[in-house]
């Protein structure tokens, strides 16, 4: 077995004092350090403009680092990229879905790094594509043009590409954008099974609600790394307030809003840019008391009653 799948080997991704300054003088990330162990699903959490995508680019070596370095599986990032160690799953918005490529063409792109100069797929490459498609349950769509798929299917195609690439490190950019909850769950299940094979998944998201559901590890970022570590230690109210600042909304429903007895417990709902719709009570919908949020920081955005119905 490859030593990279060994959980005691060098950490999956390690960043030391990374600073990225763009040509126009804007420093997007300053002095960012974090470490992500192997076999981990890690969330990279921060508001828009906090440097999430810059950090992705830094890991993949797309932007020059003003200071610091990134190591992947204990090796300099540049060398890791040449060995197909890192796969990238783009945001749905970043893909041209009208492009004349079929599902299997996209997955085959994951094999390119393993092919020779002319990129002629071998029998082995075809086998990898087929098993990757089978694993994400998309084999029957293999000769569809990619624009004809649903949001979740599109995501699965790019996950299949990462699988076909045989990468140890997979970077996912907002994988839950435009995807329904059921699809989100199936993507999470897939990521878990990939984690159990020793892979590292770094997931950039601003969707706080799903973070505790799927992550083992969290990196909180706002121009620099504010906190990183196991999810249960890092994903706390104090840290989130620090990371999100004024953007975060807290909806605290006090005891008197929830029930008529003296129970003093509160329900705290934290969201960044969507108003949550919170239901509390017994399962009978008729008895449920519907509490629209009594937001402490009510913005003037359109009401969007779609948050997590977990409570």
């Amino acid at each position: 077995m490859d030593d990279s799948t060994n959980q005691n080997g060098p950490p999956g991704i390690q960043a030391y004092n990374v600073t990225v300054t763009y040509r126009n003088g804007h420093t997007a990330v300053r002095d960012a350090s974090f470490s992500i162990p192997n076999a981990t699903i890690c969330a990279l959490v921060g508001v828009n403009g906090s440097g999430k995508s810059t950090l992705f680019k830094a890991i993949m070596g797309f932007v020059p680092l003003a200071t610091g370095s990134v190591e992947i599986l204990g090796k300099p990032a540049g060398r890791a990229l040449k060995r197909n160690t890192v796969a990238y799953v783009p945001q749905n918005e970043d893909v041209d879905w009208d492009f004349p490529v079929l599902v299997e063409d996209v997955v085959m792109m994951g094999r390119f790094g393993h092919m020779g100069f002319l990129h002629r797929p071998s029998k082995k490459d075809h086998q990898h594509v087929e098993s990757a498609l089978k694993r994400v349950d998309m084999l029957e769509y293999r000769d569809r043009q990619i624009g004809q798929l649903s949001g979740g299917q599109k995501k699965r195609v790019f996950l299949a590409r990462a699988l076909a690439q045989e990468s140890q490190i997979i970077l996912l950019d907002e994988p839950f954008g435009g995807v329904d909850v059921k699809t989100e769950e199936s993507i999470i299940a897939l990521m878990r099974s990939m984690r159990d094979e020793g892979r590292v998944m770094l997931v950039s998201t601003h969707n706080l609600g799903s973070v505790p559901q799927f992550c083992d590890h969290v990196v909180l970022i706002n121009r620099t790394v504010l906190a990183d570590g196991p999810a249960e230690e890092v994903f706390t109210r104090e840290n989130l307030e620090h990371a999100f600042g004024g953007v975060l909304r807290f909806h605290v429903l006090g005891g008197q809003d929830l029930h008529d007895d003296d129970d003093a417990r509160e329900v705290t709902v934290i969201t960044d840019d969507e108003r949550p719709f919170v239901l509390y009570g017994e399962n009978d919908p008729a008895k449920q008391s519907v509490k629209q949020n009594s937001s402490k920081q009510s913005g003037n955005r359109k009401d969007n009653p779609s948050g997590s119905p977990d409570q």
Partner: protein
Amino acid sequence: MLELLLQPFTIDFMQQALLTAVLLSVASAVLSCFLVLRGWALMGDAISHAVLPGIVLAYAAGIPVVIGAFIAGMLCTLATGFMTENSRLKEDTVMGVVFSGMFALGVVLFSFFTIDVHLHEILFGDILGLTWRDVWQTAAVALLCTTLVWIKRKDLIILSFDPQHGRAIGLSVKTLHYGLLILLSIVIVAALEVVGIVLVIGLLIAPGAIGYMMSDSFDTMLMYAIASAVGASITGILLSFSLDSAPAPTIVLMLMIMFVLVFLFAPVHGLIRTKRRARLSKAGVESSIQ
């Protein structure tokens, strides 16, 4: 009747014209697929105009025209990139200013040098005035470009579709980008003799657009692009012979007609099919409501 149809093929200059046009349309069709997929239509137009000062100066200095054209084309793209980054203007605005300015510079420069080509030939092509030497030169260029793009097409597809992934698997995105620009300049120069600066963009965009409308996979898109470009070249030249019209605009006109037909009647993405699909799904929604 048959004699009249075959007559053009017996004339030397018609043979030369047909052969050159067919070879060149294959090269430009292959390239046009990537121009369409990368959204480089305006870029192609800009470069084809901006090469003029380079061509004039190269003629005057006695160096190969391709080199002058390439330098001028690069200058146009680099200047556009620099000005876009350092101003509040959008790229297409800057490009419009730069390429029209360079084209104007070329026309002005033209009057300073005594060159044994007519400006008219550079602007509109001179496909009926070729020598066999021109034909073989064009053939070599066309073959080279077509082969290069064909063997690197998968890299170029990744460059166009998902450059991030390209970088992640260690493709040299920059080399591919500039390589494509170099090939574009070469094909533009080779196409000057056939269709001229003004109409070369027709050969560089329409075939790719036709292929894009007709197909959902790259290789079939490419086949449609080549077929339409070759078909338009042959019919255009033959038609211009019997109509006594200029060949270059006749070729481009044939492409335009093909494009309109494809726009309307393409099997999946044509207007009529799209409308019908929209109507059917609307009817489906309504019947399911009732």
